[in-house]
């Protein structure tokens, strides 16, 4: 896929808002920033569907809506099937000559719970069947809507209300599921990771995902001030720190071919720029317990996991 789409800040600024003001997301909400940026990258007509979660709840409290496009929410675990249903209906309408448009972009939004955990079956099924839609995972690394419970996307060592920083067990025991790799393994045309801190990269990747013919998966890290326990002004900084420490490297896989994106490529080329994971952890309250003598060893563990995963990614990208 050769993406020719070019844009300037002015283009994006002039584009009418799709995810409108008036939603009830928290101050400093990472996902809300992600939604606004992602929807700036869309082409013509769009239909969006959203899994149950923070963003559906804050944007569609009846009789209000933050959506200026057709939008449907049905349940928590089925957003990929919902998107498949919309795409299939559009196909049927097109075949009958009843669709006014050449193309309608279908976007499915879901958080980490609706993707890593309860939603992975529907997502895997839709990917296998090759439905043409963009799946956006906004990853705030826990079940934030229900009060910060751990998910398959919660990182090792993090405090949540179901993986508390106890006297014996320091936060989440297991590691974060490598969901984007799992999606690449489905042999779909487009998979990418993105961060709200690198918005040009995020917007471009969204467009490439939409232009892909078949299922596309965009994994966007979207920090949550409530759940990650930091000051609401720090959302973008933390999102950037995740990339700088290689906790959340930026890459894309077009037809299964991995390539690092610029912000991570810089680090690959100049390893001295790779910041220690401590920098990322210390500003977040959810990792505060790791900075006690008793649990300091966990920070080393996290560093090892991050290093190992980074090394593996470099190999996939042909950078070693």
């Amino acid at each position, binding site marked *: 896929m050769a993406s020719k789409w070019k844009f300037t800040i002015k283009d994006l600024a002039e584009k009418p808002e799709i995810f409108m003001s008036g939603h009830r997301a928290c101050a400093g909400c990472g996902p809300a920033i992600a939604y606004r940026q992602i929807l700036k990258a869309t082409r013509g007509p769009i239909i969006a569907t959203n899994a149950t979660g923070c963003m559906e709840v804050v944007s569609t409290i009846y*009789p209000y809506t933050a959506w200026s496009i*057709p*939008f449907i929410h049905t349940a928590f675990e089925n957003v990929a099937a919902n998107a498949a249903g*919309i795409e299939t209906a559009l196909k049927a309408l097109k075949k009958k000559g009843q669709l006014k448009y050449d193309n309608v972009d279908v976007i499915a939004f879901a958080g980490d719970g609706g993707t890593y955990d309860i939603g992975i079956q529907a997502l895997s099924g839709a990917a296998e069947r090759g439905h043409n839609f963009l799946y956006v995972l906004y990853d705030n690394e826990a079940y934030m809507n229900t009060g910060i419970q751990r998910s398959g996307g919660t990182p090792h060592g993090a405090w949540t209300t179901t993986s508390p920083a106890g006297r014996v067990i320091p936060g989440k025991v297991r590691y974060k599921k490598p969901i984007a790799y799992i999606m690449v393994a489905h042999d779909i045309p487009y998979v990418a990771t993105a961060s709200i801190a690198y918005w040009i990269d995020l917007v471009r990747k969204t467009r490439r995902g939409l232009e892909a013919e078949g299922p596309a998966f965009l994994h966007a890290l979207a920090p949550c001030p409530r759940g990650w326990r930091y000051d609401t002004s720090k959302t973008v900084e933390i999102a950037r720190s995740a990339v700088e420490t290689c906790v959340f490297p930026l890459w894309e896989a077009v037809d299964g071919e991995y390539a690092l994106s610029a912000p991570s490529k810089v680090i690959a080329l100049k390893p001295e720029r790779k910041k220690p994971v401590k920098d990322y952890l210390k500003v977040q309250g959810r990792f505060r317990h790791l900075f006690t003598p008793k649990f300091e060893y966990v920070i080393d563990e996290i560093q090892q996991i991050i290093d190992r995963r980074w090394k593996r990614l470099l190999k996939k990208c042909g950078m070693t």
Partner: protein
Amino acid sequence: MAITKQNLLALNGDEAVAYAVKQSDVDVVSAYPITPQTIIVERFSEYVHNGEVDTEFVCVESEHSALSMCLTASATGVRVFTASGSAGLALMHEILYVTSGARAPVVMAIVNRALSGPINIHCDHSDSMVERDAGWIQIYVENSQEAYDSIVQAFRIAEHNDLLLPTMVMLDAFFLSHTLESVNVLPDETVRKFVGTRKIPLVRGHKGKLVPFKLDPENPITMGPLDLYDYYFEHKRQQEEAMQRAPRIIKEVHDEYARISGRKYGNGLIEPYRLEDAEIATVCLGSTAGTTKTVVDQLRTKGIKAGLLRLRTYRPYPVQDIINALENVKAIAVMDRSHSFGAHGGPIFHEIRHTLYEASIHPQIVDYIYGLGGRDMPQTLIHEIYKDLQKILETKRVEKPIQFIGVRE
């Protein structure tokens, strides 16, 4: 209108359903196979792969996704069908409520099968009975002919703009799904004309504008919003109001279909059989009604005033029709092919007895739980039930209001 000339085909119940769907100009079918519904999806796959239909057919990875796809496809404005049963229907459970709440007129065939555990693939009604409160219209058919006829009618009923209620048509596993019967089928063009094209009503959308009730980029609306305590209740009330309108529309569609096909099933909601002067009667639904009719005929030859009431729709539950049909019967046996554990009898018994509390004469009523997990319900057992009813008629006493029949004690 003259009755249309029809073709007589040898079809089992599943094939009859698939054939009706093939003729009904369905845009999207999404389904997962589950015994004994499987033949429906298999036959439909053949139609698709042989180019006999232009339906978008998607074989999904689970019933949960099947209904999820149908729901949003329906919300996009197209005609939609799926089929399931038993564990598959149970897996859809959550989405059944979402579908009716979203007022998506999905049509689904259910091949009634027991629920685990222990696992069992044979017929009883425990799967669809637990879904009676999900806001779907429920039609139980007696034979494969009725399965065919009811599927065609279901699209008209579900998509009626005064209803927009998802509709399920139930047929008994194996007794109907896998048994070859003679089925009269209407010509393709007659069915196509009968079902027509789906019409989308206008609703008040963003900024108060009247817009089509569908996902349409030209007229965006938000569907499936978060409804808190300030609106949820009103939306649920609207579903009930639609259900109240359903009997009239089901009857209308049924009568219109009768005019072209020559086939009627009572008044579309209930089918009374030799009840006019009946002193004793049974109430049941599904294929058991066929066997029971034979038994009633045998009893009538002996001068016994026996009758039967078959419920065709269980949702909407036709209260007044049932009262009218049963009010003068002195002893009634309800036959439940499912059970509500720990309750005082099966679900149909609850409602029939409750309904007749409003009747002017209160008959004696007993419940028979029968046929769980596909256990046969032969004529001999049905004769036993009528014998019990005769005894109740004589003694005016009910010894045992709830019994399991055909089970090893």
